[in-house]
């Protein structure tokens, strides 16, 4: 009798230890906008008084990618730089020009009209993200030193502001 009980207890203990444990991996799917820095822009210096992201002048335009998982939920606004966030002391006023355009879209059928439907005000371009998918925006920038004075030697950084704003 004692042996039988002992065997049952041992059996139950072993089975308890032998149980597999499950480790949950939780996740939620929800609408979102993701801003990715695809290409950080680089200023070329074709002459002493110009900094430009134009490829032929040694620059690289900044490319930003927007991924949207809900249609008609976000605006993308992209503002080209209008000042340096860091630079050496400058000898004159800098004149800024800049523009943003759609470089590529993941679905040309639903996103093909983004560029024609954009709203421009100043250095800012506003796009209505009416479809789900990815859009690549290319921003070019030109900074010309006043009086054709030379840019002092040093490093210069200007910021492209990429915003994804819920509608």
């Amino acid at each position, binding site marked *: 009798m004692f042996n039988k009980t002992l065997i049952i207890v041992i059996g139950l203990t072993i089975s308890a230890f032998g149980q597999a444990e499950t480790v949950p991996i939780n996740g939620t799917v929800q*609408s979102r906008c993701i801003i990715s820095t695809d*290409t950080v822009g680089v200023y070329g210096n074709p002459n002493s008084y110009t900094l430009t992201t134009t490829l032929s002048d040694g620059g690289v335009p900044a490319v930003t990618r927007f*991924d949207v998982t809900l249609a008609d939920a976000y605006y993308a606004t992209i503002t080209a730089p209008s000042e340096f966030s*860091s630079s050496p002391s400058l000898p004159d006023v800098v004149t800024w020009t800049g523009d943003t355009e759609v470089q590529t879209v993941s679905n040309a059928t639903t996103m093909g009209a983004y560029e024609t439907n954009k709203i421009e005000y100043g250095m800012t371009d506003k796009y209505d993200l009416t479809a789900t998918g990815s859009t690549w925006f290319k921003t070019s920038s030109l900074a010309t030193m006043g009086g054709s004075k030379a840019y002092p030697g040093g490093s210069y*950084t200007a910021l*492209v502001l*990429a*915003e994804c*704003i*819920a509608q």
Partner: protein
Amino acid sequence: MRMVILCLMMLTSYEVGAHEMTPTYPKLERSHVRGVYKSTLQIFNKRKDVEYYEIGVFDKKFKPIPFVTSYKVIHLKYLGHMTFDVYIREKDKRKAFYVCSRSKLRTESITKAAISSRICSKFK
């Protein structure tokens, strides 16, 4: 050919940095403090060049609204997730329209056009 280019761009894009904030439409709910409302958001940093994000609450015209959170500038390492609460007074609840996170960039010794990202969710 277009598909190949698109696939290449998408593949290379996995290496680039991304900034993400959810939900798109957060709810303002009563907090444990009387007269104060709370909303919970998540932020994810996939930008190697960014370690700090600034939180802001704004009205419809993007004028700042007073709010409280644990840190207005969040330190978030690469691939880091963070859940944070935003507290707003009841009298500001109607005015509060957007809650935004903006990347803060470090000064570097390269002449470049850097990208500052800002994502704004809209209060329901």
